[in-house]
């Protein structure tokens, strides 16, 4: 290109890739990549993120469709749970004779 610019007027959209590493497990975020459409995104994800059998299933989501919580709000967001230890089984003191509970 004459102006020495390599800019692609329409950069392919960014996709987030989620991979299930084996049957029965959750899909987990693996990373991101660029692709023209979802099919190409899945094919590229296979080549980029599962070269060593890291997955049995792939999800791709266009990055601009992901909405995230605000890290600046984490305190007000998660604080309400921190004083509710009675939601955990260890909160309850039972005699040792109680079995299978």
């Amino acid at each position, binding site marked *: 290109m004459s102006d020495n610019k390599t*800019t692609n007027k329409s950069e392919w959209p960014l996709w987030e890739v989620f991979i299930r590493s084996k049957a029965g497990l959750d899909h987990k975020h693996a990373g991101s*990549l660029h692709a*023209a459409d979802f099919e190409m995104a899945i094919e590229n994800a296979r080549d980029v993120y599962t070269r060593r059998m890291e997955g049995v299933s792939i999800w791709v989501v266009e990055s601009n469709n992901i909405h995230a919580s605000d890290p600046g709000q984490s305190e007000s967001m998660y604080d309400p749970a921190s004083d509710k230890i009675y939601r955990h089984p260890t909160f309850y003191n039972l005699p040792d004779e109680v079995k299978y509970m």
Partner: protein
Amino acid sequence: MTQFSFQQHFDDKIDRDETIEPKDWMPDDYRKTLIRQISQHAHSEIVGMLPEGNWISRAPTLRRKAVLLAKVQDEAGHGLYLYSAAETLGISRDEMYDQLHSGKAKYSSIFNYPTLTWADMGAVGWLVDGAAIMNQVPLCRTSYGPYARAMVRVCKEESFHQRQGFEIMLNLSKGSEIQRKMAQDAFNRWWWPSLMMFGPPDAESPNTENSVRWRIKRLTNDELRQKFVDVTVEQAKILGLTIPDKDLKWNEERGHFDFGAIDWAEFKNVVKGNGPCNKQRLETRKKAWEEGQWVRDAATAHASKRKSRKENEAKAA
């Protein structure tokens, strides 16, 4: 929060060894330093495919060809993981490509040396990937989350790269006289440039307080270089190869090998663009990008055609 408390919050996280994530507030300096470092690293992975790519069609056996192909494919993957990590900091992929293709961005100068014989595939895997691993392992715990996660993946994959290289050297060193000479010759040519991969001596490139604090750099250039020399000398013994350095000797007192002076003038010259292959590498890279333009355009056109067809179908229904 005020600017001050944002900074305080960031500093506290760093002090607690927590990771910084893309949406977290971060100082401009941190962002800029990371964009530079991660994109340079990505460029190195991409340009790093070229010296080895040269040999894929000339690998001596089908097994060697499959292995080399897999290694080069990994390097492409490493470049992609790292470009994605850099993108989370707000620079676009195209901007980074621009910086590479226009010569504005640097990549590791080791890739500006030629790969003359098959033994170079051995020496590159053993020494160049070996040095890269030594540089990269500490980065798996760097403070920026996406970078650290990319590095974990990269480091996992790198170890086969070094082992396949060493295996090539091992076979050659046990082979005919000509093969042994070929291995030694490759070793002679790659040894010094590999030592340069750790960057200028500490006296000229002191770790800034910030890069240590931000866990972008954990050991100094000289510390890493020494570590590399110590382990590689022992590995060379197994191959029966001679280190091309007459000043190399064990220093009992230091508990390390002493080694000769590195030709930093050569290093600077290669960084400046005057290495044996700088021009060729950049041209090959640009050619690949330009000749791939029609593929990118076609895929974009195909995707938008399909999208509008789908929309029309939905309207009709």
